[in-house]
């Protein structure tokens, strides 16, 4: 019997939603479980097989000295390492602390700050170790996850578009919320892949798939100002689930209050 590829799922600082996406593949879960050996997936199993692993899926961002060390050990044991979701790919919503004083953050949540061991920043996995592919989204799309796992197992390039959300709206025939009703929307600078969700629900895209390829964030920011958004509004629009992704970080910083 040929050995099946060994799959490991690792968690760092996150909400668990992206690894849950794997368990949410109800129709495909047993087929995936048949194609690989699930060697390490603590959320799903107490059975653990030692490394090395053929494919590691990494969820979550690096926020503690311990995790900064742990990700290096994970990398050494992984042939292919893929990050899943906005936390692992850009630092996640918890990266908002990168723009604030972390001690005041700790004090505002915990009565005993001395018990808390945390880095001043929440950073992406690629800031610590080489990453083979980054899957976007807060949360990821389970369809993209299946496509990616299938591509890795079959040694082919995954079909994951890097164009903007605008393209997804045009293809779906969704009326542009910004043009039609003046609703602020990050679609022009956000990578497609969510399945055309927010504009199809009459709201602006809030950027949960992170920056699209070559995003013109400055031009969009100008247009948001024309729509009546304040500098503060624009700063906060770029500072959400992908606040620490480079293009969004730059634009958010450019609108930071003096």
């Amino acid at each position, binding site marked *: 019997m040929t050995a099946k590829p060994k799959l490991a799922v690792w968690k760092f600082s996150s909400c*668990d939603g992206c690894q849950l996406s794997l368990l949410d593949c109800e129709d495909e*879960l047993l087929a995936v479980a048949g194609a690989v050996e699930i060697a390490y997936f603590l959320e*799903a199993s*107490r059975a653990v097989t030692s490394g090395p692993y053929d494919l590691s899926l990494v969820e979550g961002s690096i926020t503690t000295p311990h995790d900064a060390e742990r990700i290096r050990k994970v990398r050494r044991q992984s042939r292919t390492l893929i990050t899943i979701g906005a936390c692992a790919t850009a630092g996640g*919503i918890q990266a908002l602390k990168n723009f604030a004083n972390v001690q005041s953050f700790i004090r505002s949540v915990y009565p005993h700050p001395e018990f808390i061991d945390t880095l001043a920043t929440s950073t992406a996995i690629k800031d610590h170790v080489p990453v083979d592919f980054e899957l976007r989204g807060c949360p990821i799309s389970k369809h993209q996850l299946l496509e990616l796992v299938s591509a890795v197992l079959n040694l082919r390039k995954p079909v994951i578009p890097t164009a903007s959300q605008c393209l997804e709206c045009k293809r779906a025939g969704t009326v542009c919320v910004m043009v039609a009703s003046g609703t602020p929307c990050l679609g022009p600078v956000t990578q497609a892949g969510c399945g055309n969700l927010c504009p199809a*629900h*009459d709201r602006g895209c809030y950027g949960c798939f992170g920056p699209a390829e070559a995003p013109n964030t400055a031009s969009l920011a100008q247009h948001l100002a024309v729509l009546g958004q304040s500098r503060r509004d624009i700063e906060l629009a770029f500072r959400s689930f992908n606040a620490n992704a480079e293009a969004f970080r730059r634009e958010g910083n450019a609108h930071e209050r003096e």
Partner: protein
Amino acid sequence: MSASDASMSNGSEIEGSVSNANPPAKTASSRVIKVSELARVEGEGNLTIRIKDGRVKTVRFGIHEPPRFFEALLQGRMFGDAPDITARICGICPIAYAQGASHAMERALGVDLSSGPLRDLRRLQYCGEWIESHVLHTYMLHAPDFLGYPDSIALAKDHPGVVEKALRLKKLGNRILEAVGGRAIHPVNMKVGGFYKTPAKSAIRALIEPLKQAIEDSLDSVHLFAGFDFPDFESDYTFVALHHPSEYAIEQGRIVSNRGLDIDIAQFEENFDEEHVSYSNALHGVMKGEHGPAYLTGPLARYALNYQQLSPLCRETASEAGLGAVERNPFKSLLIRAIEVVYACEEALRLASAYEEPEVPAVPVAPRAGQGAGCTEAPRGICYHRYQLDAQGRILTARIVPPTAQNQKIIEADLLGVVTRNLDLSDAQLQHRCEQAIRNYDPCISCATHFVKLTVIRE
């Protein structure tokens, strides 16, 4: 994969902290057991148990999920950002957070959505989350313990029909979430004041036939679980849950206990507090006054305090499964979750059958200075939010008390009881029993921090 628990190690070898690979030397009077990362819980935690001269000295349930500082990062943002941001506290129960935050904002801003079609739509969505979360926990995380499997995938090899039925139920929960909210994890359609867009009647009515099947599937779950061998353990808990006179409380009600507490949710902080202990990144919830500090929230509490509000079918099914009107064995939380899935399917069917598209997707909300509290029954128990807003509607302060934080003291108390009664078990067996006792609470550790390592030290 072996189904034999004793041969399995738990935790990460990369961590170098697997204890069972090298069980500590045991003497007649001292024992040390460690589990560094608990499996099949959502998030990461650890457990340390110290046994000396045959007596349990200390039990510490610690949560090492790195802190994410949600209350702090909400400060300065607009009130409307709270549902989307707080949803990211937990990928398993985002509705609990998004709705709790919305309710709190609506109270602060003087908007009432406690009845009417928008409220019904929110309750339908919440039923979807209960179904998805409870089926995930009962079948995929908890049932393998009772059947001696390491996970549901190993279980599926021997019992494919059982797991396929479970996945069908879980998928329906997700389908409800998608129909109302756009996607199952972190839905996009919820806002303070209602929804961005009203779901089409056809999309909601399409849930009716699958829900009829789901009620049958959910009854099968109860009958399957009723045949499990439940460890003999009971405790005289202080139960805390939401209560509503005419329905099983999910997203609305007063906070009540079995010891006479009956308060509006705005009085939560007068009656409950949180403690910060050195070994955990989650604050421990405590009840003030004579009935505290430990209290239980979640399925056991909801069931005991709202038994009369369950449907006749649920009460009858509970009785067939051997459950009384009050259940004090935490291992039977598995059965109660299964009953709650029956209820959520029935309730979702009722709401979907009656659904007409609301005239407007949301009521208008204007910013003003104020403070508001929100509290709903997340799948794991009550989840409390409180926000203070300035005149522009920016968040001045935020406080969020998730259910797993509230249950930590009870989990420790249960573990103390379980270990004390099972000192004759081997380290591996004792470790497994302790893990199972923790999983009774479906601890959502991502929520509670704000990683489970089990260390049993027999000295």
